[in-house]
């Protein structure tokens, strides 16, 4: 969303724009829609405005994914090709319901994620990833006795843990995923759920508690696990809960 103070007039057909606008029911950001439309017509001024207003900020949008000027440049170039060029540029898909800046941001992040994915595929290291994930599960116990215990009960434990995570509701599960898998900070999570940081903090703690208690209950239900073993396993889990949840959730994807 740009400052509404600044208005532009581009050299494009008003009639065509009116037609474009009318086809977009519910458009609320008409100024943005107008800019996007003009960009799609390859109007030079419009492209310049789009460049300075949105593309210049790509770096900050994807900084958390990879903060590297060459990576940013690549994302930006791909973005230009994808959304601005060609006979039917993708920017025409922008509906005007939300701000153009937000649309550009999500498109840029999408592009960056794609690039990272492709890179990963080129490096051909998927096995290593899963292996590390597996080892994360239930942590790397140092105590040899616990190592044995873990080895022995891993299937039951995994089942109990899965049930425990299932028992969470969608929001709680996504909360933990955002927090532990995506490494999103509490403030950003709060925004997604419309909650304050303190509330999100409390929710995270409550979810952990729930997972822990659920796992213990399920583990006790499953045959073949001795009570003593349950207690020992739970002790391990308690010290490694976050790592375990992260490992499990990642593996589950």
């Amino acid at each position: 969303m740009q400052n509404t103070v600044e208005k532009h007039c581009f050299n494009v057909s008003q009639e065509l724009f009116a037609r474009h606008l009318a086809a977009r029911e519910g458009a609320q950001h008409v100024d943005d829609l107008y800019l996007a439309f003009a960009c799609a017509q390859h109007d030079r001024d419009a492209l310049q405005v789009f460049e300075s207003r949105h593309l210049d900020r790509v770096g900050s949008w994807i900084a958390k994914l990879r903060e590297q000027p060459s990576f940013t440049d690549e994302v930006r170039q791909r973005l230009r090709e994808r959304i601005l060029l060609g006979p039917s540029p993708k920017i025409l898909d922008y509906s005007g319901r939300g701000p153009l800046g937000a649309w550009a941001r999500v498109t840029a992040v999408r592009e960056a994620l794609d690039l990272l994915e492709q890179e990963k595929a080129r490096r051909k290291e998927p096995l290593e990833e899963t292996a590390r994930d597996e080892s994360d599960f239930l942590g790397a116990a140092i105590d040899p006795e616990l190592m044995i215990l873990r080895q022995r009960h891993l299937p039951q434990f995994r089942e109990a843990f899965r049930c425990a995570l299932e028992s969470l509701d969608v929001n709680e599960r996504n909360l933990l995923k955002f927090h532990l898998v995506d490494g999103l900070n509490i403030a950003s999570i709060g925004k997604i759920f419309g909650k304050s940081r303190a509330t999100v903090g409390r929710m995270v703690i409550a979810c952990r508690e729930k997972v822990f208690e659920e796992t213990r209950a399920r583990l006790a239900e499953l045959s073949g696990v001795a009570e003593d073993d349950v207690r020992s396993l739970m002790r391990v889990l308690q010290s490694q809960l976050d790592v375990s949840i992260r490992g499990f959730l990642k593996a589950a994807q």
Partner: protein
Amino acid sequence: MSCLTDEQVTDLADGRMEPARALEAQNHLDGCPACRRLVAAVADSGSQATQPADTQPLEMPIGRGTAIGRYLITSVLGAGGMGAVYAGYDPELERRVAIKLLHDRINSEDADCEDRLRREARTMARLVHPNVVRIYDVGIHGQRTFIAMELVEGRTLRRWLQGEAPGINDIMAAFAAAGRGLAAAHEAGILHGDFKPDNVFLSHEGRACVGDFGLSRPLERGQSTDSFDGGTPGTIRGSPAYLAPEVMAGLRPSAASDQFSFCVSLWEALYGRRPFEGRSPFQLLAQARAREVHPEASKNVPRALRQVLLRGLDPDPAARHESMAALLEAIEQRPRRKLLLGAIAGAVVVACVLVLARPGSARCSGAAAELAPSWSSARRTALGKAFHAAGQDAAWTVADRALSTFAANWTAVHTNSCRATRIEGHQSEEVLERRSRCLTNQREVVAALGDLWLKAPKELLAKAPAALTSLPLPATCGGDGPLNAEKLAEPTPEAAPRVAELRRDLATVSAQLAAGDPASALTLARRVSADAKKLGYPPLEAEALLPLGRALHQHGDLELAEHAYEDAMLAAVAARHEQVLAESLVRLTRFIGLDRARLEEGETLLARATPVVARLGDGKLASDLEMGHGLLRLERGDLEGARKIFTDQLPIVEALVGPDAQQVGELHHNLFMVAYKLGRNGDARTEAQLTLSILERALPPENPRLTIAVMDLATVEAGLGNLSASHQLFDRSLRIAEKNQGPEGPIVAMVLANQSEILADEGDLTAAHAGNERALRISTATRGPTHPLTAHLEMALGLLDWQAGAVPAALDHLGRAAKLREDHFGRKNFETAEALSNYGMAKLDASDQSGLGMVLEADEIVEQISSNALRRALTAGHACEALLDAHRTDDAAPYCERMFRAAHDEWPTDDPRFIETLALMTRFDLARGEAAERKPELEAAVETMEKRKGAWPRTLVEARFALAQVLAKDPDPAARQRALPLAWAALDQAGDLGSRQSRLAAMKAFTEGKTRTARR
């Protein structure tokens, strides 16, 4: 659900998604890591995505308890495209409000933008209509704009239509109400710009109101076909499906385009789909041109109604209905006749409403009949007889004129308001009802006043003229006041008759107060107040406390009056009674700040009252408050500020009450006080003459109010040296005061105080002292020992004692005066400085050297804060004199020169005050041995003063003595010979007048020394 769209991703990441849709999205994320990762990455990309980095503000999250402007957020209501909406609370008015916080940021450095916002806010706030969501306030929170508006508890029209599938009658009723809101907006010059079912709210009580005038702009008639903003389509806003074709094509929106949107919405509500369903404006346009609406007809929708709507949907704005009002009329009449044939149960009800509404509508000529109990020719004759019998024909002439004016204005407002609703149809029933209630109330006050006069004793009839300034102004019922006030809670049906009865009693209290019978008013007000409390109807409690306060105030129980006013204010807050709240704040401001002389509290109250009164929009109250503001400024010593306020008020008050009314005279009186205090005697005389002539026209002769008007003119005439005129006026003033108040009234004290000052200037110290002492005694008893007037009288008496040589008594009075003024005004104030300077001089005369420090400090204060030449000349003159007395000629130099310059700039050379400084300046020159060149000036001065025949004798003494001293050093022997007789004349007269000891001693020493030399 399939993968999230880009918008859903950003909405979710930024927390803008509605709860229901958010849950759906979360469900999807649970099973789609790719989408989740995208949301996480976008959420992590920071809010800088929406703002350029340099303008991104640090924003606190908005939650319960967040303060936005003066409002507290209590919960989130929802989020929309334009911004989030919160439920909030206004602690000042104790009401719930809705707060919309817009997404769009404004550039805080762009003053234009803020300005435009405020202008728009004012426009919107003016629009008060039961079918329009009321805008209370617009402001800035951080860098975002917020709008505080009426909280409508209910749902949008769209949800209602979808959720309940209402019948045609309910639909028509809701749309007719919304249409009236839209029509009222158009009437006020405001366009909606985005009318659709989502922007109309239906409260739980079934009231429909149009909201979200967010896209509206002031209406410019006759410009609907102009290209708009240079035809920049980028500025088109609104929802295309409801937009008129001309707006979609980039033309300027108009009332007709709102009408189009309204018809699309109503069509959709009736038929379940919109009339044109083309995807492009060309399709839409083509369909509309060919009247190609979807063919399906509905049994329930009469053909006539369809025709009415089709006209509203005409592609040519000029071919649509003339206005929203015309459209509504068409809707309400034609289809309903049809509906009767349809024999739908609801239609019968509608018809009954129509039947009930119509008969009254054609007339609007009932004003005279309704007014009859208050004012009719029979009543006029009866009142005239009563006044005549009491020997008050003069009072009747004035009262008759005022009552006739009231009746004429009342009838006009009544008729106009009735016509606006019943005939022209642009005013809602509720507004009519509010205006009528206001008018009824005014009529009852006037009726009660007449009843009172018919039975009243003679004394009360004599006070009739004073009552006339309290006559209600019907124009206020026709103005914004009755509309802006929050609607009061209704009493229960059982309580209603009693409430009406007590309200009539309150009208009587107002009449008694106006008539000048505070004792009866107090008795009745106490009873009504107690009864109101018992009844347990809070608005009435507040209404009763205010007259109780006024009665106590008029009766002189100031302590109790203060409590009653405060209680009235609190009760008004509790009952959400905006009218009483505003009125009690205005009264408290003036009462505390002026009557109780607690300036700072008064100023605090003023600050509280200002927004409340402004919001109410009652012109009379606003003007009352501004007058109080000016008087507080005057009291504070900010003369220029006060002058500006009074000058600004002059045309407003003249418009409110007519140019010959007493209130206009009062305003000129205030302007007189300012001019007088500023030392502008010419202006002061003009204002005093204007005051007197207006009051003489507005009031019968000998009316008590004339006392002060006459006295003011007397004072200013004396200042200009017209002593005999002055004395005549003073005598007339005192005569009126004593006649009205008896010999001990506070006004008598005031006249005496002023006259004493003039007598003292003339040199009649004995008479001055006697008058002043009597004034001080009265003022201490009636106004209290700390009142500024009492302090002023203390100082005046001290100065008289000092001049008469009674130094201990002088020190006593002057010391008290200085302390009282300092306590009242603070030290850095020129009233205080003046008292301090006088006190210091008296101390020096008593050989107390600490006086010098006070004199110098006083001058420093005045030098810092005052541009008033009179004050500067006084304190600098005292400093000059004190240092000369101490033989510190060099130290005296800057003070003497400053004094003389100030005097020179301010007064002509024949003004006694200038001559006084000239004499002092000569003393200074003599001390430095270079006085010869003053001779011509002094010769002229002595001649001038001798011609004044006795006025300002002390100045004549000083002028003569100064000239004598200069002549004594003249090389010309003939000149030297004139010195001695002059000096003797001065000394003789000084002895007669009673003069300061040190001056007498100095004159004696010089004169006797010269005499000895001459003998030798």
